[in-house]
């Protein structure tokens, strides 16, 4: 009996010790900053210097993207163009300085216009003849041929100091004219930014004085972090969905959090079909795949009703987007397409075969919850039309390596984002493999059309060319658009003023306050 008492006493002591330990360290945690000092803790998916979004906090672009995807003034305040789009005169904002005191002038702008387009998929560099510095505030840009997309593309030029870059398109000195100044940076881990108190756009002066940028690579950890209040917001510095869709309903139900879903700007998740190698060389197989996927079902089940089904390549908000949806779900048509190529289920195992060869796709995706779930969904969906899917999930690097080697039949791909014209320049012309699978440059006509849409200043011509592009893509099926994946911010409920920007890369904190 005495022993029992002693045991109890020991347990109590241990418990006291443990709680004492936790209590002490708990008390050390610092209080939140006072009202005037507002710190926003951002949970990010990527290294600060690696993504395209974080840099928009430090740098300014030459022009702004507006909601209809046209351009507005920023560092370039006014522009004039001649009738055939071969000459542009740009007027620059006066009195803008970099955070280290250097002035922004025509020389700096000229450097940026010449240096960055290669790394930002801007087509104008191919037609650029000369840039003439008229005076400190005025530039004249001349092209060899007419180029109508120039001003739009300037929205992708984020202005750095001329001596702040290396020969490979890397920024070596992160000094910009933007709303924030980079104070501290740990590769792959964190960054600290403080407000640029002399920011030239006084109307856009942010209320947040300090940003703690924390890299959280694991998607579940990211969600946990915002749930437990460790970070104020996630999804802010990425142009894609950074949390599993499955979490969204749960996050929405959480009273401590607010979930903003962007209705207008986002990306369309598109899967790539390896049309240059293997079974997917057969157009009918590609068609069957595109027809065999029930996108409504996909979105309502494994995407939890958060994503919207679509079979378009670009958002309908885009002026030149295709008029109608592309290939829609149709089981009979899908089966017919397969039959047309001679695929039949001869042995009754549920899978079709041709020349004794079972139709089996190698599906390669990188390891995220959404990819795994969609993969299993597709596997199940394609089984219904008799196609077997060998799902292989790898880490991001391995996936990229395999895609680049063409070692896949079906894979995730890069959506048609950025300005559509830039995307066409990048992957619309490509007929080989890259990190995102295979390009959409399925024939020579795609090259001509890409040329046309970027050069012309005439919306009619552009529209015609785009319609042809959509026809080609819908007919050839180099890729299968599946769903419209919105941008989603998840933030603590005391944070107000988070907003989505038309330029998907831009992070605009000008109206954000922490209550």
């Amino acid at each position, binding site marked *: 009996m005495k022993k029992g008492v002693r045991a109890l006493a020991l347990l109590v002591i241990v418990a006291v010790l443990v709680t004492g330990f936790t209590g002490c360290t708990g008390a050390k945690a610092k209080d939140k900053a006072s009202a005037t000092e507002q710190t926003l803790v951002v949970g990010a998916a990527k290294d600060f210097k690696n993504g395209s979004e974080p840099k928009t906090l430090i740098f300014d672009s030459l022009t702004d993207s507006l909601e209809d995807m046209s351009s507005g003034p920023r560092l370039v305040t006014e522009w004039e163009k001649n009738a055939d789009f071969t000459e542009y005169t740009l007027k620059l904002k006066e009195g803008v300085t970099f955070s280290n005191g250097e002035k922004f002038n025509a020389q700096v702008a000229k450097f940026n216009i010449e240096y960055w387009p290669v790394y930002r998929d801007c087509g104008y560099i191919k037609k650029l003849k000369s840039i003439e510095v008229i005076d400190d505030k005025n530039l004249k840009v001349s092209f060899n041929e007419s180029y109508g997309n120039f001003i739009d593309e300037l929205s992708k030029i984020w202005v750095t100091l001329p001596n702040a870059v290396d020969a490979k398109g890397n920024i070596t000195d992160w000094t910009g004219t933007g709303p924030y100044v980079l104070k501290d940076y740990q590769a792959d881990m964190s960054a600290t930014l403080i407000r640029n108190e002399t920011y030239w756009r006084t109307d856009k002066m942010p209320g947040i004085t300090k940003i703690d940028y924390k890299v959280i690579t694991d998607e579940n950890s990211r969600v946990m972090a915002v749930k437990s209040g460790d970070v104020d917001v996630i999804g802010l510095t990425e142009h894609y969905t950074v949390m599993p869709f499955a979490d969204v309903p749960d996050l929405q139900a959480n009273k401590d959090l607010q979930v903003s879903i962007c209705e207008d700007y986002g990306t369309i998740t598109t899967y790539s079909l390896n049309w240059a190698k293997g079974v997917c060389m057969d157009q009918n197989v590609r068609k069957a795949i595109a027809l065999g996927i029930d996108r409504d079902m996909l979105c309502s089940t494994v995407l939890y009703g958060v994503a919207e089904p679509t079979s378009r390549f670009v958002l309908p908000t885009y002026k030149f987007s295709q008029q109608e949806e592309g290939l829609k779900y149709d089981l009979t048509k899908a089966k017919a397409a397969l039959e047309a190529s001679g695929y039949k289920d001869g042995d009754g195992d549920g899978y079709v075969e041709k020349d004794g060869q079972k139709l089996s796709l190698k599906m390669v995706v990188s390891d995220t919850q959404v990819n795994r779930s969609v993969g299993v969904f597709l*596997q199940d969906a394609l089984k219904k039309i008799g196609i077997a899917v060998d799902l292989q999930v790898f880490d991001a690097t391995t996936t990229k390596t395999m895609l680049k080697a063409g070692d896949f039949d079906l894979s995730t791909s890069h959506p048609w984002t950025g300005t559509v014209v830039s995307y066409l320049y990048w992957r619309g012309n490509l007929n080989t493999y890259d990190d995102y699978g295979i390009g959409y440059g399925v024939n020579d006509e795609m090259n001509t059309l890409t040329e046309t849409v970027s050069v012309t200043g005439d919306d009619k011509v552009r529209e015609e060319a785009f319609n042809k592009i959509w026809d080609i893509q819908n007919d050839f099926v180099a890729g299968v658009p599946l769903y419209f994946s919105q941008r989603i911010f998840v933030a603590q409920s005391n944070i107000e003023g988070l907003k989505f920007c038309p330029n998907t890369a831009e992070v605009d904190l000008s109206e954000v306050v922490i209550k």
Partner: protein
Amino acid sequence: MRKYKVKTKKQQKNLIWIWSGLLLILLILIVFSPYIFPDSNTINYELQLQKPSFQHWFGTDEFGRDLFSRVFNGMRTSLMYSLIIEAIALTIGLAIGLLSGYLGGKVDGFFNYIMNVFQAFPTTIAAIALIAVLGTGDLTLIIVLSVMGWVAYARIVRSETLIFKERDFVLGARAAGGSSAYILGKHIFPNVLLPVLPLATLMIGHGIMAIASLSFLGFGVQPPNAEIGLMLKDSATFISRAPWLLVGPGIVLAMVVALINALGDAIRDKMDPQKQMMEI
């Protein structure tokens, strides 16, 4: 004086029977899971993320698949791979341990040193590094864990061989002119096999856990195959919405491994009566 209730031999035996029975039931469910639960991979979106109920004891996952049947399907993969891994590791370990212990000298020194090197790398990390070389996949998983697993066997076989080498019957056989191969195969091998048995049992549990860990990190079994680590990885996403996704696989995994370990302990006790004596 305090009175302790000491379990009688009969009670102990009964307990062992209960455990063995439980393990047997689990093993039957696991081994024959494809026949007992033929539609564990059948997708039914109407049943998405259902709470545990009478029809679905562990609930359902995001594809509406019955978690209970999937858990056993998953354990089947784990158990099968673990058995293969331990069989390979045991073979390598036996061969090296026997040679090392019997031949001694430079051979022993060499193998000892190799074993030290192998033990310098934590299993998970070494496995991931090797998987990086060989590529992710189920086969790689088996190879890698076998390569990392033999050392434990080799050590115990070696020390047992050293003991038996000096035993009279071995010395006698040697004096009678038996060849080394004959002595190793006929006299030492059967004797060292016995002490290895409890370790081998314990290592099956370890193997299951190692496979689960690697799959959890994304270096193991591929979907849509059910595997415990993979299922737990998915459950991480649904942890607040559907915590039961974490519970079911955890319970079965813990039960199977615990029971296998208990079996290993029982075997060891049986073979080491001294321990039992000590307990008196």
